[in-house]
């Protein structure tokens, strides 16, 4: 073996920003994560030109998957046009030469923070979720080594205790985001801070979901057609946010997850959280030929019988 054989010709920049050894490591970890749905797999989490906590985990997974033919959509709280989403999308365009899109249906990779698009994702699409805290047991067990043992033993009883305490204190479950969910009947995950509204979209989904926490250096996956059950009590059914009757003031669409906008007179206006979904509806109303994909929720109710 010669040194020459182990090296590559010099280049100023590697395609997709990450070097090949970082990509190989992520590939190995992603495969193991897919093989054990919901299991938190540690990875190295390289430096990227962005502060930890701003989506570096999702960024590294997307960079690993990137090829010039990729079509990438990036969302932040449902919006394509926030500073965080725009700059991450622009970064993929610069280091990967990929096609940038805001249309869920056109994307091959959807990187998201805090939302899953309202339109159903297809079998050939990958959803990459940025995760700030991958550990569902953290509220009950701050020591990550002990938490890991608890995952090994499937010792999740204390998570129900948290939900029970909320129920006793407030009369209903107050967990608004990061709702603990059981994947494939074995591992409890935090599905990243998506609202309760979005958790059923992971159950038996057509698409592959990879969740990656860059700061915590762990990633996990939910393969397609995998059971994802939010933790509930037998006699207290899972409840999503009451957004079924809210109407978006811009697009006039009812029955999807909305942002509440406080008004001067004390009342509230609502706008669709999935911004491009709203834009599509507005364009369609104006007579443009826009194709709106099938949605998980119809008339404000989860209609997909798989969920």
């Amino acid at each position, binding site marked *: *073996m010669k040194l020459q*054989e*182990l090296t*590559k010709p010099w*280049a*100023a*920049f*590697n*395609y*997709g920003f990450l070097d*090949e*050894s970082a*990509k*190989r*490591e992520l*590939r*190995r*970890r*992603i*495969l*193991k*994560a*897919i*093989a*054990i*749905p919901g*299991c938190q*797999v*540690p990875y190295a989490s390289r430096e990227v030109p962005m502060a930890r906590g701003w989506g570096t985990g999702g960024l590294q997974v997307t960079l*690993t*998957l*990137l*090829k*010039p033919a990729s079509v990438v959509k990036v969302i932040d709280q449902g919006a394509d046009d926030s500073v965080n989403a725009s700059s991450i999308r622009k970064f993929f365009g*610069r*280091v*990967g*030469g990929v096609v940038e899109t805001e249309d869920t249906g056109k994307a091959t990779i959807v990187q998201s923070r805090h939302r899953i698009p309202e339109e159903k994702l297809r*079998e050939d699409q990958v959803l990459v979720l940025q995760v700030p805290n991958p550990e569902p047991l953290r509220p009950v067990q701050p020591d990550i080594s002990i938490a*890991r*043992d608890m*995952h*090994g*033993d499937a010792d999740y009883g204390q998570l129900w205790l948290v939900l029970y305490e909320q129920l006793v204190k407030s009369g209903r479950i107050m967990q608004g985001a990061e709702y603990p969910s059981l994947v*494939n009947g*074995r*591992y409890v995950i935090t599905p990243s801070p998506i609202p309760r509204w979005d958790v059923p979209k992971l159950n038996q989904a057509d698409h*592959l979901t990879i969740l990656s926490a860059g700061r915590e250096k762990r990633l996990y996956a939910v*393969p*397609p*057609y*995998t*059971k994802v059950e939010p933790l509930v009590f037998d006699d207290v059914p899972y409840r999503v946010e009451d957004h079924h009757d809210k109407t978006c003031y811009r697009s006039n669409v009812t029955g999807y997850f909305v942002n509440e906008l406080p008004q001067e007179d004390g009342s509230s206006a609502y706008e669709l959280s999935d911004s491009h979904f709203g834009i599509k509806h507005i364009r369609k109303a104006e007579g443009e030929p826009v194709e709106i994909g099938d949605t998980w929720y119809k008339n404000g109710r989860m209609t997909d019988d798989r969920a």
Partner: protein
Amino acid sequence: MTLSLLPTADDSRTNATFEEMMWALSRPGIVRTLPAGGLAAMAESLIDRECSFHVEDDVEFEHALKRSGARAVSLSEAEYVFTVIDTEEKVSRHAVLRTGTLAYPDEAATLFAPARFGFGQGLRLTGPGIKDSLTIAVDGIDPSFWQMRERAIRYPLGFDVYLVDGDDVIGLPRSTKIEVL
């Protein structure tokens, strides 16, 4: 600064190979086709000096893998195992494969074995990644392998398998339940 936006031929090959491997494991039983290169391309896209591997009875391939900087170790220690399991005797040797620990079930072996798809032993697959159930036919794998696999897997502990037929690949993660028909 000008950015080099185009991947090199190596980058494209490993990226495309990995993508097929990812979908093969996400959708167990569905045949995915690698762009080229078969086993060697799969090894190239995953293995480097941070890994350990084991090759049974293929000195040339072992030499090629060593060039990646990976360590050649025994069957029971290897993370990536390239082998042939077409007789009962060979299958029984693989009972020692790494299956991980409860704290780190990901520290388990990945097995690559040649097979022929479309005829031979019928297998019904269920589990994550499979809509309802899926029936496949695989030849070139000794029937005792499926019993050995079932005994070895104490989910989430277990090893993951790639069956390789030239450039065609089927992934069988440990989460897949296999019924021998």
